[in-house]
């Protein structure tokens, strides 16, 4: 089913949820006057500390709980509309799986609820198990799984119907760094395919890595919302990354900035790689060396049935543009106007570039995989993972 380009996937207006006691007295206001929309094809983050109303909001979006006031529409229909649910996938905060079923039976059960035919269902199950790296453990009961393994099956069941709208509540909870990276990669890929994703988490780094827009809740109310780049940009700072510089050159740069811009250099240091990248590299090296493990294996390829829905209109353009750009560039639609960043002086940059050509290896940026260097690292990581998988097969 295709999304109508002009209708937001989710529309929430004045949403309020008040929990009452047995005597119908108001006790807790979990959500108050919440307004937001999720556009087709975007990855939307719902952030907030514990008790901020994230899960309650998601439950109301899914019809598990009913709002006290306000309006919710999912694909233009009420959340309790049964037909709408065939277009949604949901990964709850805990996997909430059946302990007495094995992974294959679990996916088969949910596949049957979508009235998938036997062969289609079986093929999808095989591909999803491969994608989440649990094909060899498919016959073990869920009750014997670790939390991370259960989480993977939870994700697989959320994708069994190739949903247009995916709701992920704490998707990386319980996962090791490998699984966390894989989930984030998967979210990015699904986003590029034009799927709409609502991600709820209090792991800020995860949200920062993958989301286009976020809404930050506290006490049931929205405190901030908008494009993530715009929200995070420090408008009064400039960051320039160069290859390694000598102390003398650094001193000259300080003097030049003092002289030209009357500004001090706040810090000069060698940027650090992210611990996640280091971890992934070590694991990739171990997998390349065929070192055994009893845990989940490296995940396989993306299941090819995902994203088979043909996007149209704006979501198609977004997908094409996203695919043409670097991996984590996003076509953002800032919710609020932000102050333009002062453009760095071109003369300064040229001077810096001219004076520093000693070829030090660039470092990975602090956020996301903005730079070509990080993108190639990720690509090589993925390729090495795929090589190791092919060796295993």
């Amino acid at each position, binding site marked *: 089913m295709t999304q109508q380009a002009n209708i937001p996937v989710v529309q929430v207006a004045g949403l309020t949820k008040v929990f009452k006691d047995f005597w119908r007295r108001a006790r807790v206001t979990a959500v108050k006057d919440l307004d937001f929309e999720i556009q087709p094809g975007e990855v939307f983050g719902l952030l907030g500390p514990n008790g901020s109303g994230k899960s309650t909001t998601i439950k109301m979006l899914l019809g*598990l709980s009913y709002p006290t006031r306000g309006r919710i529409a999912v694909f233009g229909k009420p959340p309790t509309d049964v037909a709408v649910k065939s277009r949604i996938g*949901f990964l709850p905060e*805990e996997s909430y*799986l*059946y302990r007495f079923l094995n992974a294959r039976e679990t996916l088969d059960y949910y596949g*049957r*609820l979508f009235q998938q035919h036997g062969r289609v269902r079986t093929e999808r199950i095989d591909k999803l198990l491969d994608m989440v790296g649990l094909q060899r453990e498919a016959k073990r009961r869920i009750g014997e799984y670790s939390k991370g393994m259960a989480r993977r099956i939870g994700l697989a*069941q959320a994708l069994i119907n190739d949903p247009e709208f995916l709701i992920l509540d704490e998707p990386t909870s319980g996962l090791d760094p490998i699984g966390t990276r894989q989930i984030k990669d998967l979210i990015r890929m699904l986003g590029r395919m034009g799927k709409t994703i609502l991600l709820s988490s209090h792991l800020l780094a995860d949200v920062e890595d993958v989301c286009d827009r976020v809404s930050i809740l506290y006490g049931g109310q929205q405190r901030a919302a908008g494009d993530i780049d715009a929200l995070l940009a420090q408008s009064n700072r400039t960051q320039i990354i160069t290859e390694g510089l000598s102390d003398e050159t650094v001193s000259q740069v300080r003097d030049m900035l003092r002289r030209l811009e009357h500004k001090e250099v706040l810090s000069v240091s060698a940027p650090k790689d992210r611990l996640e990248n280091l971890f992934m590299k070590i694991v990739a090296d171990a997998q390349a060396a065929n070192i055994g493990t009893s845990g989940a294996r490296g995940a396989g390829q993306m299941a090819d049935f995902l994203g088979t829905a043909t996007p149209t209109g704006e979501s198609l353009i977004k997908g094409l543009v996203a695919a043409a750009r670097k991996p984590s560039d996003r076509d953002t639609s800032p919710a609020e106007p932000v102050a333009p960043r002062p453009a760095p002086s071109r003369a300064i940059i040229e001077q810096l570039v001219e004076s520093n050509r000693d070829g030090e290896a660039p470092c990975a940026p602090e956020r996301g995989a903005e730079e070509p260097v990080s993108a190639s690292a990720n690509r090589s990581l993925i390729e090495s993972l795929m090589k190791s998988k092919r060796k295993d097969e």
Partner: protein
Amino acid sequence: MSRLWAIARHLIAEAIRMKIAVAFILLIALAVFGLPFTIRGDGTVTGSVKTYLDYSLSATTFLLSLLTIFTAWSVSNELVHRQIFVLATKPVARWQYILGKWLGIMTLNFALLLAACAGVYGMVHVIARRPTNVPGDREQLLNEVLIARHASPLAVPIEEFQREARNLFEQRRAAGEYALSPEFDAQSPMHDPQADQKELARLASLIDSRWRTVGPGEARRLEFKDLLCDRSRHLECELVSEGGARGQARYDETLVDGKSIKRLEVTVTGARADSPQTVWIDQRRAGSIQPDASGAGALVVTNADGQSWPETLGFIREDSLVMVGSGLGGVFESINNLRVRYKAMALNYSADELLRTIWQFGDDQKNTLLYVRARADAIDKYHKIPVPTDAVAGDHTLQAVVANPAFIGEGVLNPTIANLAPDAQLEALFGVGTFIGNYARWFGLTLWRLMFLAAVALLAVSLFSYPVAFLVAITVFLLAAVRSYINESFEFLQVAELPKVLAILVQAVQMLLRGLFLIIPSFSAYDATELLVDGRNVTLAWVLTGFGELVLVQTAIIVLLGCLIFWKREVAEVSV
């Protein structure tokens, strides 16, 4: 439908893998396969089979009822452990969820009930094969237990009694016997028509009582109606001789297109092989058998066209078969019998506590044969008199004359006054079907009760958390099981004689229970175990009526209510 079935399969898998169903399966297996080794009944094979049927089927029904209530725990489990969060986000309507669960419970019930019934049936045949020294034990088992019999009660000539009562009343009024009672005087302004009716009823009751009391030297003509039984004659005869030869004979007389087709089959073993054996029935030659070298031989004579029968042969029950040459002989006995069942009651009886009667069955004016039975039955016990079905007339009535002899023994006056009171439960029982058919109808009625119980259990879990839901469902089950007893107790309880406070409390409880009974059926009204054990017919009409009332109406209403409640429920909130 595929979604319903997916949910149903899931529930079955849960019940089995979480060991709920396994525990009950083991208990049912213990009841089905263990009881035969622990029960003996009255020592006869018939008694053992009846006791085993009663206990095993009752235990199976009870255990499956409990399993039904326990299995509904699946819904509560999914609510508490939040699997419903994932399930509710799939394209499954709330009503599909509840209906799917109901379908799963009933599929499990159907399979287990079927398996238990098959096990019971097998064990019945194992018990039936046990050796027995009681004469007629196996015949009784086949004719009174492993069969489906219809009971036709004694037709009491009520209208005749009322006519007699009216005549008597008018005679007495004309004779001035009511002169002192102006309420009976039709000319008097104090005439009370209700008093007339009361007096007529009293007189009719007196006439009825008088009719039912058969003194020494008296007889009564009785009638049983609507005996839609097979009136064919089927006689069997065991042939014995002193010389070691043995044989069997069977005579059948059936009506085909209005013609009476007679068939006689005689088989012998161990007869002399060097001479033909002539078969005689009641001094009339029926045919000849030529034994082979081993002494075995057979004779079959059928008058398929009504003409080839050597002579017109009419049998009465005591007809004997003789085979000249081998010395074989025997007496035919009817194997196609109905049973006249009654409790021997007497207002006055002799020291040996026996009720001696002479019964004649049949009506020669309606061209039936007459069968006479002399009985000496223990008082206050039930007895059965086998009567060949060809005593039933073409209008499906059975005439019987019961006579109380004036003397018992030589010159000894009979002191016994026979009492055919309603408590004697005089009835004619005849086979209308097979045990298998009866068993299947019992299966249906049991399944309807389980359907209702499943709906109640699901309604309860839709509303409450599991412990409370279990309590509610069990309470409904127990009330349904004992409702008939509670209603009887209401009738007997004299509230006015109780202290005031207690009377108010009792009345409040009665009102509450009566209100509940508007929606809770009486399971005993749909329980055919007693009939099945007694070999009585479980009618198809009863099964279909039960389906209509219990399933289409009550179960459907409760399932709809459960769907509605679950539809409105916020599954994210756990209720207690």
